[in-house]
């Protein structure tokens, strides 16, 4: 009896260690994955925000290449263009090395402050209007971080900007912007003609691709992105980062899977007698394979679920910790998709790891298996 208990205790430890391996791997996958989900989310939101607007920016992203009012006029003349919204952006403060989104001043023509991003709405106050000078409409994050309300001020280039409107949350760039009259920004940065980018409103949203092509053909020195292309571009940039982020975690889970193979081989070895007996009383190879595959899959499932829960907890914790530094943005985003992928991956890996041991169990000759162990 003591012997059996001790054996079970040993096996408990072994199984537990194997599961912990998977747990740690899935934990890493969940945390890293939640970060990459956050970044993908940023892109999706940004694309939604654009609506049907085409973005025109300088060809090179050097500080020296800018667009001018000449370019604006050229774009306006293109067939199918309903309106052009020029913007001039600038950082509110010095750019430091940080993971957060920088706070940006968007100079926009005041009467376009509400149409620049067609889907954003005001939470409080009003949009900019003609005649505004040092008035500003700020994003939700910026307001939260600096504790701004209507009437508060932000210091920008030695001037106080007065908050007249606060935007609803968008989960992307506009959360950290302060919209200011374009003329004011141009004056403060001493670049009267500066255009950092243009948002082109198409007459017919169905024809964005055609209009984008027209702009490309007729205006030199610009890059033109339809909302779809802008998304593709951003996703490409993110791909490398994601590979690095998630790659290491996937390797970790993979190592956990190797441990499952080991554990299952040991289990099969220990239970040769039992397997022989089962086969002798008529169990088919398929039944034996299924038994061990199920055990391996179960190890994967338990490890995956525990890992996911712990990872979720850690992500939540990290969000709380980094919220202060990043001004309330949560950069670890555990999505349903990520959860499914994490647990699914663990189960798949467990099952995969069970194949060889299960196969070798099924292959056992019942006569030999019974003889050897008795």
């Amino acid at each position: 009896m003591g012997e059996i208990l001790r054996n079970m205790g040993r096996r408990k430890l072994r199984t537990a260690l194997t599961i912990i391996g998977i747990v740690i791997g899935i934990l890493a996958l969940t945390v890293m994955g939640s970060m990459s989900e956050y970044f993908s989310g940023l892109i999706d939101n940004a694309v939604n925000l654009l609506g049907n607007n085409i973005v025109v920016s300088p060809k090179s992203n050097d500080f020296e290449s800018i667009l001018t009012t000449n370019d604006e006029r050229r774009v306006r003349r293109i067939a199918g263009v309903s309106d052009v919204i020029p913007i001039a952006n600038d950082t509110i403060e010095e750019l430091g090395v940080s993971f957060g989104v920088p706070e940006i001043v968007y100079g926009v023509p005041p009467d376009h402050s509400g149409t620049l991003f067609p889907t954003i709405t005001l939470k409080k106050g009003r949009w900019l209007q003609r005649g505004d000078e040092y008035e500003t409409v700020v994003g939700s994050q910026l307001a939260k971080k600096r504790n701004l309300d209507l009437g508060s001020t932000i210091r920008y280039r030695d001037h106080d900007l007065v908050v007249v409107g606060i935007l609803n949350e968008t989960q992307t760039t506009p959360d950290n912007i302060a919209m200011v009259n374009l003329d004011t920004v141009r004056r403060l940065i001493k670049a009267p003609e500066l255009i950092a980018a243009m948002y082109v409103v198409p007459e017919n949203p169905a024809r964005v691709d055609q209009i984008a092509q027209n702009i490309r053909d007729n205006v030199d020195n610009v890059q033109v992105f339809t909302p779809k292309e802008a998304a593709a571009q951003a996703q490409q940039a993110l791909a490398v980062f994601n590979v690095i982020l998630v790659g290491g975690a996937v390797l970790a889970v993979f190592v956990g899977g190797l441990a499952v193979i080991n554990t299952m081989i040991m289990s099969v070895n220990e239970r040769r007698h039992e397997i022989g007996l089962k086969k002798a009383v008529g169990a088919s190879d398929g039944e034996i394979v299924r038994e061990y595959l199920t055990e391996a899959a179960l190890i994967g499932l338990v490890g995956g679920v525990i890992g996911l829960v712990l990872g979720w907890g850690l992500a939540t914790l990290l969000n709380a910790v980094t919220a202060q530094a990043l001004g309330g943005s949560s950069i670890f985003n555990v999505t349903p998709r990520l959860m499914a992928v994490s647990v699914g991956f663990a189960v798949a890996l467990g099952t995969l790891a069970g194949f060889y041991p299960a196969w070798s169990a099924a292959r056992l000759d019942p006569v030999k298996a019974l003889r050897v162990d008795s």
Partner: protein
Amino acid sequence: MIEILRNMMRRKVRTGLTIFGIVVGIFAVTVMGSMTEYFNGLIDHARAGAEESIIVTPKGGIRATLSDADARRIERVQGVRGVVPQVSTFYESLGSVSFGPPDQVLGIPPEKILQLWSNDDLAEGRWLERGDTYQMVVGTSIAKKENLKLGSTLTWREKDFQIVGLLKETQTAPDGWLIAPMDIVQKTIKRPNLITQINVIPEDKRQATALAAKIKDEVSNVNVQTLQEQLNAIEQGLAVFNAILLSSAVLAAIIGGLAVVNTMIMSVSERTPEIGLKKAIGATNANIVGEFLLEAAVIGFLGGAIGFLLGWGMAGLLNVGAAQALGGSEIFKITPRLAAIAVGFAVFLGILAGLLPAWNAARLDPVIALREEV
């Protein structure tokens, strides 16, 4: 006999899998680590050359610039021996993803070059001189990328530049620099008075920090940092990046370590009679512990060494691939320190993983152990 061989084969698979787990973990540590080593190396090299120079950059947002007037104001501050204004811009428009410092065209007044550089910095040719126009001195990586030699001609922004000097390799940003006369660069990018950075040479290098503070007080609208401060800021940002890069890889290795625990527990339980026999004929507890710890350490060492070698190979491969994609920069750097850490970590993990099984083995009562299995 066949049975024994089969058992050995089984154990080979088990040991092989266990080692493979460590291999994968250390492989990841090596590859990711080589990337952090590259970035750390950039900083270290920059630091070595830093001396105590002061760098003045424009204050304000992304579009802020400096002017001649700023340079003159700084020159008048007491304790300043000289100022070297510069304009820098990207050699190519930046792609969406890039690692390491981008290639830059740097405009410096030729007569001031020797205040920042010396003839020892040149591998071949000469520095720019007063009267030079479309001449350039280039760094090693850009020279390699564009296949430049003394006397070659390089076309940049539709202008032909003649290469008159090649820099020695620095393993840091200057390797990707193309240095040309400032006025020519300004003219080529069509920004006649643009200055992006001013290097300040202090009369007394030991007083650099104090002088930086003084410039900050006396000249408005500029950022003043000693190079050391700048590097420290970058290093902080890098620490987060490094943590992200390495954490998953380290976890993978730890999971590999858990598998070692499992394997060693199995070994101990298989060899129970053997251990009992050894103890019965006088082996001390320490002998037994030593035996199993050594076994675990060897597993760790083998896994670590193989993992490191594979990682090294992978880094080399990635460097070739990355060099093609990113233009000459080798961003995976294997250092002796990294080798020691990777293998050392694996051995340490192995030993740690062996502690519990070894202790279990030593604790066995020889009488019971012998009786048990026979």
